[in-house]
């Protein structure tokens, strides 16, 4: 049973020196998604929906959704969470994230409400302290009966499960792309996000307890797909 990680690890093992990572970032792995199919069906016959994409910027997704007449809001949540300026010391002197500041600077939509949200697998990679506040904030900015698409890695995915950009390639298909190298202050910095946790079904139900309903889809590549209704 191949996993998403397997597909990308094959690229790493087969890569050549300097161009290996660049080539890896260009390569896209195909993936069927039943939950995406249901998500796309739900939005298909609606006009002018407002959709929030919380994964890494995907020109693909923006083009596809705006072509359908939707207003798209995009926010790369994980990159924002990695901002070093968010780091503070708590009462015990441990380094932690300033949650209040994070929520002030991110997921702040000036009253805008969303019909649909693409959370992808961001929750698996978010720092622990942000997971619950982020989901609560998403709940508050979604319209009733709005839908949210989210993926969660299963235990078999392993801690090296790569963080990917998800491109909507069709009604029920995705293209996964490794998050590429990022230039920071003139130096090339390779950003690797590590899987922070594995949610089980109960954890996921608890996470979305303020929502109306959930539907789970278990896929062969150890990625649990969840469609949530506000």
């Amino acid at each position, binding site marked *: 049973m191949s996993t998403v990680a397997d597909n990308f690890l094959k690229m790493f093992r087969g890569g050549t020196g300097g161009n290996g990572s660049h080539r890896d970032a260009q390569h896209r792995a195909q993936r069927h998604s039943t939950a995406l199919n249901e*998500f796309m069906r739900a*939005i298909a016959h609606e006009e002018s929906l407002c959709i929030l994409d919380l994964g890494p910027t995907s020109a693909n997704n923006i083009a596809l959704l705006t072509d359908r007449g939707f207003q798209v809001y995009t*926010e790369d949540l994980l990159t924002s969470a990695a901002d070093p300026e968010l780091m503070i010391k708590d009462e015990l002197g441990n380094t932690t994230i300033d949650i209040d500041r994070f929520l002030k600077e991110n997921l702040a939509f000036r009253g805008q409400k969303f019909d649909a949200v693409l959370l992808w697998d961001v929750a698996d990679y978010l720092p622990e302290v942000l997971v619950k506040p982020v989901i609560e904030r998403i709940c508050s900015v979604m319209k009733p009966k709005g839908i949210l698409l989210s993926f969660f890695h299963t235990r078999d995915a392993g801690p090296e499960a790569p963080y990917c950009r998800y491109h909507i390639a069709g009604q029920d298909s995705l293209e996964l792309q490794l998050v590429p190298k990022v230039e920071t202050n003139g130096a090339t910095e390779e950003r690797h996000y590590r899987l922070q946790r594995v949610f089980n079904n109960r954890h996921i139900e608890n996470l979305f307890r303020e929502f109306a309903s959930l539907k789970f889809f278990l896929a062969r590549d150890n990625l649990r797909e969840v469609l949530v*209704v506000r």
Partner: protein
Amino acid sequence: MEPVKPLDSRQVANIGKSVVIKGELSGSEDLYLDGEVEGNIELNGNSLTVGPNGRVRAHVNAREVVVNGHLDGDISATERVELRKSAVLVGDIRTQRIMIEEGASFKGSIDVQREGKTEPKRGTAAYEPAGAAVSQK
């Protein structure tokens, strides 16, 4: 990085990378901006190109906007907006056409207004799953 040229070679005002401007910037010609601007930029009927060193904290009104550097502000472009791979944009975009190169970073909303498009009616995605269930492929 290959050199970035303004959109065409007609009259183009140029703000170099060492220039810092605070205030309202307006004009009736195309603008290539590689410095720092804080305020508002009004170029109705003309184009704005933000160079790779450009640091803009301003709302922009123009015919076309091409971003290679940093822009923090809303863009209203009557024709198109282009975000090149080195672009970092935080703000809302309202335009007819948008092109985003792979690698560009964008945080904000996009409202594509096609020519002749009427004011849309807002709907809500209605999805009624048959309760929580585990469905296996």
